[in-house]
């Protein structure tokens, strides 16, 4: 399997052609529209009877406090995990994290890995790396499994196969696993269960992500519905958890607040079927559970984002996906158009730090700044403000506040900069502005019908006979 190779070759800069292709595909449009409508409705219902604003304020304050004490918390977490018998590793970037995982696998002579859902492992391109080292890595979350069968990447961080409908999945499973074609979801699910049970039993290592890491007790928390996460972290003799360094929270109480927000925001569930809290390998007389548990704390750009007073808010994210579900752009183009590990609004503010603003130059602009993402974010990340910040950085548009993100200024073009300079001159000279607008109104018969991209879908707005400035003046005289 070389699905991750495919994702490595995706050129993030080719956003427009991919978006156009998605927009022209009625099946994709329909799949996302109905899925997002469903998710928005479920979220709304799940928060009924709650003071959502107060809850979001709590979520934000929990994350802000955790970030303010991040280095101390990481050290506390490391000490507690170690005392619990969990081995802690640190990785500066994705490659280093991959090497750590591979080394653990090699030391155990492991050839078969079963994976629970982990966006950090997607960020690291871990599957690809393992394949290169002769280690078979199989995804066990049903959505991830399907995406892997198809040789694709997830199109949503919570529901990886949301871009496919039942018919497409049936075809896929038939082609790749010999499952009988069926539109019965129960049947397809049961078939996947059958295939994966064998794999769980025979896997040498289980790899999972982490939703929250609790410093006070040294506990790794995983949120899931399927039970594949429990299988992955319980059945194989070795469990490796990979996590971003920002996932740590000080106390169990902090964790409970984020849990309440996460599942309701993500899928509209009061809680997921399983909330799995791991605080150690099999101990003493215990009869099951892994002999070894490892945690890889992955930086991969996070300590860089941490330096900036505004961009640091990106690190509050608890990966619920609500911003995607409510984003009118994501809903139209789907997750693959972005070409990034994290799609949608959170991806637009997170990916530039991982891949640079040169490669990710189109990401910040692909938003109408409608604010729906910021409105639903359970930890109040000011996503629209951060989009504006990154737009500024992508054109180096502020002499007072120099750009800091790698690849900044990549989108600046002489022509556009000149156009804005001209705009500035006109609007900073009121007399010139009045003269110009009055002249335009006077000559409105000459107004062209076609105004580039605007009139591709709309008729051109019509200039008024007299401007408001003139009409107000007319009344006075």
């Amino acid at each position, binding site marked *: 399997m070389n699905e991750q190779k495919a994702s490595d070759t995706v050129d993030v800069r080719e956003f427009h052609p991919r978006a156009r292709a998605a927009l022209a595909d009625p099946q994709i449009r329909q799949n996302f529209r109905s899925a997002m409508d469903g998710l928005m409705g479920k979220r709304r219902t799940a928060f009924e009877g709650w003071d959502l604003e107060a809850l979001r304020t*709590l979520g934000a304050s929990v994350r802000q406090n955790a970030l303010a004490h991040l*280095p101390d918390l990481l050290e506390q977490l490391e000490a507690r995990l170690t005392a619990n018998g969990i081995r802690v590793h640190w990785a*500066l970037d994705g490659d280093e994290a991959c090497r750590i995982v591979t080394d653990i696998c090699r030391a155990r002579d492991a050839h078969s890995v079963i994976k629970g859902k982990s966006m950090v492992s997607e960020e690291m391109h871990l599957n690809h790396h393992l394949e290169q080292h002769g280690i078979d890595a199989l995804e066990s979350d049903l*959505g991830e499994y399907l995406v892997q069968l198809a040789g694709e990447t997830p199109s949503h961080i919570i*529901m990886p196969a949301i871009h496919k409908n039942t018919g497409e999945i049936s075809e896929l499973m038939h082609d790749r696993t010999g499952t009988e074609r069926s539109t019965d979801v129960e049947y397809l699910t049961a078939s996947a269960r059958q295939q994966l049970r064998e794999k769980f*039993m025979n896997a040498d290592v289980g790899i999972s992500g982490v939703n929250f890491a609790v410093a006070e007790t040294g506990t790794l928390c995983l949120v899931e*519905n399927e039970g594949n996460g429990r299988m992955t972290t*319980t059945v194989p003799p070795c469990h490796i958890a990979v996590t971003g360094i920002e996932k740590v929270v000080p106390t169990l109480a902090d964790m*409970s607040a984020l849990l309440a927000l996460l599942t309701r925001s993500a899928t509209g569930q009061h809680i997921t079927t399983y909330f799995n809290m791991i605080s150690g*390998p099999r101990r003493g007389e215990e009869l099951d559970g892994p002999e070894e548990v490892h945690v890889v704390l992955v930086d991969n750009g996070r300590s860089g984002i941490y330096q900036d007073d505004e961009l640091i808010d990106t690190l509050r994210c608890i990966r619920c996906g609500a911003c995607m579900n409510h984003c009118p752009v994501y809903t139209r183009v789907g997750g693959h158009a972005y070409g990034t590990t994290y799609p949608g609004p959170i991806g637009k503010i997170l990916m530039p730090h991982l891949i640079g603003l040169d490669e990710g130059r189109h990401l910040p602009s692909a938003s109408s700044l409608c604010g729906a993402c910021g409105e639903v974010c359970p930890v109040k990340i000011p996503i629209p403000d951060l989009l504006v910040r990154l737009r500024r950085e992508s054109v180096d548009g502020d002499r007072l506040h120099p750009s800091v993100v790698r690849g900044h200024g990549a989108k600046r073009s002489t022509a556009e900069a000149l156009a804005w300079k001209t705009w500035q001159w006109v609007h900073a000279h009121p007399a010139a502005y009045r003269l110009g607008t009055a002249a335009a109104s006077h000559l409105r018969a000459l107004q062209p019908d076609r105004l580039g991209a605007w009139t591709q879908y709309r008729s051109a707005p019509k200039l008024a006979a007299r401007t408001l400035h003139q009409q107000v003046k007319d009344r006075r005289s």
Partner: protein
Amino acid sequence: MSARDTILQRLRNRTGDQLPTPERDFTAMERPDWSTGDKLARFRSAMEPVHGEIHNCRGGDWVATLSGLLSDRRVSRMLVGSGAEPLATLRASTQELPDILVYDEPVENWQQHLFNDVDAGLTTTRGGIAETGSLILWPTAEEPRLTSLVPPIHVALLKASELFGTLREAMAAQQWSHGMPTNALLVSGPSKTADIEQTLAYGVHGPRELIVLVVE
């Protein structure tokens, strides 16, 4: 310098302003002081919509209820932990029950058997959470982790007196912060997925059925 030291040093030598530490006001999460009856009703109304099946039992009656439920489902082999209870009650019962398999040796010795031949697993719980309809499972050497995961049916015993309003209440009352087991779980229904076109399907990797016997 190691990756660890580099990361920690970068975080400690942060260039920006002092980071804000707004007060964490947990009152938004507080729920009213529910009576045991309220809690049971809430527990039920949260768990039933996600296909958890709940039966109220009185004292030792739970074995009779269990017997009926398992025979309806033609369960022939049930896995139980090696702890004194509920094993003693089951063994003392005259009810018709499936073969009882006691989980008393390391999983490596009998994994195939566990995955292929066991129809149900019976566990105790360390209480429940009314608000979300969740069971608190606290696996031990006497009641190993996989009992509640691998068999297609999971039966859980819940004492009505151990039902808490919220997760925070349970954590505080049971002093979780003083020490967690190697693995603790909240279980809120049978295993499920909506990964195929948002259509719910049960029993994807874990149990297809979750049966809660509430013992008063």
